[in-house]
């Protein structure tokens, strides 16, 4: 297997985050996590992820703001961003796509094995 891809998960729900970590580690990904999104810059400067799995409703900052910030910065705009949220209105999806998200998934409509397939597809 090639170098393991690094995924940063920003998700404030403890249970969902722990399930995602378990599943993605099992699939061979290297994982780091943030529970509130407030420390995303620190985490990225320590180890730049290949993929950011991003929730939108976070306690300290909006996921949209994180996405916008990363995609406007030349040093981070190549990080693939998968929005994984329970906001799923047309406006939310359009906004996420316009800001440069590589994938937009509504959590309740997906399972983690499907998430793994999506991540594999965009990191190919």
């Amino acid at each position, binding site marked *: 297997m090639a170098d393991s891809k690094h995924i940063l998960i920003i998700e404030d*729900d403890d*249970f*969902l985050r722990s*399930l995602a970590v*378990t*599943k993605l580690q*099992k699939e061979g990904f290297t994982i780091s996590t943030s529970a509130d999104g407030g420390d995303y810059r620190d985490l990225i400067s320590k180890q730049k992820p290949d993929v950011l799995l991003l929730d939108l409703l976070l306690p300290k900052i909006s996921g949209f703001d994180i996405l916008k910030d990363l995609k406007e910065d030349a040093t981070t705009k190549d990080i693939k961003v998968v929005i994984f949220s*329970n*906001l799923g*209105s047309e406006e939310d999806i359009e906004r996420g796509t316009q800001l440069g998200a590589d994938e937009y998934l*509504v*959590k*309740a*409509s997906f*399972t*983690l*094995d499907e998430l793994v397939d999506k991540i594999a597809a965009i990191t190919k």
Partner: protein
Amino acid sequence: MNEIEQLRLDLDKCNSESQEKSEFLSMITHQLRTPLSGIKWTFKMILDGDIGSFSEEQKQIINKGFDASERMVELLEEVITANQNDQWDFTYNFSPVDISKVIDGIIMEFYEVARTHNVSIGYKPPEQSIGLVEADGEKIAIVMQNLLENSIKYNIDEGEVSVSLSQIDGYARIQISDTGIGIPEGQISNVFTKFFRADNAKEIKKQGTGLGLFTAKKIIERHGGTISIESTLGKGTRFTILLPLKQPQNTV
């Protein structure tokens, strides 16, 4: 304060209370998605063997648990959509609309849906262009979507759906006919009632909110139009929508 002013105030109050309820429902349904995701993912991970092995007997039960969580997600999505439709009640944008363009767009969308259900759609456009309707095109599209979804969902294998648009006595007339299961005679008068679902429909599809036709009628009446139904059990159903055409502007 006279009676009319009082009534108007009462109506405003009702509208704002109804909007608050709708916003509350929206909040709850979105919140529910999170724990529901947790349940669904957990079942799937167990089924995929991510958390260890289990017996065939356990697998059957876990499978049922996963199916139940999926059904719940689908129902929740339907309630979210229905509630969005309710919220749109407060935001109608009327302008002169060419109904044939709205129908063209919707029919295109539904060709593929129909094909996956092994149902064919035929569309008969008006013989000559018909006038404009003062309408909210997006709302009319919702009506068409709801009716087409039903005509496909409750159709037979290799069934047909036909749509036609014509002009009749100052009205744009849209008809949607299907070769589906039809509605039992005693229940036809209830089809536009909120949450109503016909017995034979429930047998075929367990899910369904019973809001599609209710919403359709509400939208059409808001346009000053009418929607009616004819149905024969086991043969099919036809909906007829009449929307008043805009009077041509008379120059004096």
